[in-house]
């Protein structure tokens, strides 16, 4: 059984690159970075990777919407939407992502006349909220297939497994190193920062392509 890659193992690998004693991220004697700081870089990069690639998605469900309720809050771990579906309790219907202008052209009276939703406007008023076009005339809820927030890293002895696939761990490491080399101070290293950022971009761009590769020979 291959152990999963954890925050501690990634921090250990990062320490080896920046010439800190490798102790799974417990201490950073150079004083250039702290454990909490590097763990924060790791969390941010993991969430960015999940959001930008949609490589790991989950199913979320909104609370029950009453007739005429045209906005729906998406549950908290949401990061980025892959697909949204309206569910009246007995039948489902995929919703189109729309802009306000497209909604107006699609159904000019969508704000006055409730009906069976055809589409949704993402993030019109709040980040984790969608506006339904038109508002539903029956109770129902939304299924949201989305990237969600990854594991919270603690750096503690047991280690927390990363949420992105283990195969992507090297790209996560490059992202963390880009943040570390980009910190203003004695540790700043433009050459290696730019390199690590380029490798991160490579990881995001190629992972986006892989999702298509799954179903295309």
């Amino acid at each position, binding site marked *: 059984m291959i152990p999963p890659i954890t925050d501690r193992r990634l921090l250990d690998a990062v320490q080896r690159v920046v010439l800190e004693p490798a102790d799974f991220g417990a201490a950073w004697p150079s004083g250039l970075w702290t454990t909490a700081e590097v763990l924060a870089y790791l969390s941010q990069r993991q969430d960015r990777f999940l959001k930008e690639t949609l490589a790991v998605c989950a199913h979320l469900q909104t609370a029950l919407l009453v007739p005429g309720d045209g906005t729906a809050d998406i549950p908290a771990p949401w990061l980025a939407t892959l697909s949204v579906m309206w569910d009246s309790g007995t039948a489902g219907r995929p919703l189109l992502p729309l802009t306000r202008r497209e909604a107006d052209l699609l159904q000019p009276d969508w704000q006055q006349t409730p009906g069976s939703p055809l589409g949704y406007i993402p993030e019109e008023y709040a980040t984790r909220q969608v506006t339904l076009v038109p508002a539903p005339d029956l109770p129902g809820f939304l299924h949201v297939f989305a990237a969600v927030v990854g594991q919270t890293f603690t750096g503690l002895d047991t280690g927390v497994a990363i949420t992105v696939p283990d195969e992507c761990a090297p790209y996560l490491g490059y992202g963390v190193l880009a943040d570390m080399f980009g910190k203003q101070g004695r540790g700043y290293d433009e050459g290696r920062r*730019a390199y690590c950022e380029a490798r991160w971009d490579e990881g995001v761009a190629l992972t986006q392509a892989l999702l298509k590769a799954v*179903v295309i020979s």
Partner: protein
Amino acid sequence: MSYTQPVVTATFAELQALVRGRLESVPYWTDTDIQQAINDALRLWSWLTSYWRKRVNVATSSSTPLVVVPGTLAQSTAITWAREPLVGVALAELALLAPDWWYARMGTARHPSRPLFWAPVGLSLLALYPGADAVYQLEVDGVRETPVLFNGGDAIDIGPEELDTLLGYVVHSLALKPGSALLTRTLPGLEAFVRAAATRNPLIRQTRWYSTVVKEGYPWPQTANLAEPGSSGPNTSRQDGAEDAAGAARVARVARVAEGGR
């Protein structure tokens, strides 16, 4: 004439020795550094090419058309249901084919008697149409199985020319530790690695990122300050003549592209 690609079996101990042979004899890198670099190279190679893959059986549920996959779906995944193949589509296409796919169950009115389509929801979850009406085994042929090498006898099977590419990449990734100058010198190792991956996975070639790399070279280090090995203050370091020339050529190439290839 045989078109079979020859494959060699390389143990971890052999790989370590081959990497050591490409580095200077003064041990700047520990065995753990090399082990991590080798395993990282295997992970990226597996991620980009689905080189090592396996078949798994996953259980369906009657309560949801979604099926969780242990691992990540590889390139060109095939899914079969009782030895009958399912057609892979994108999730948006599934919604067009069967708008009510979430509630559709096999054998119910207006729905087929067995699953016909599947769609990936990310790389570790898939949706079936129609969904199963009980617990059945679904055969997923194409889940990554990336080898991880710990002990000297742990081995991988790989084509010799791909092994060479892999070793070049391992040396390049180790160069991040000393600094930017060595990174620049070993950059062909990274470029060869990406090109080899693109040969195995044509979709990589279709990305804008790859087109940029082919036309303009790797998007680095045109603007980077090149540090000498071991230096942590790149702004005060000097560049050697060869790197100056290479950098100038790269900048000129980018300028030509920006001017429309004149």
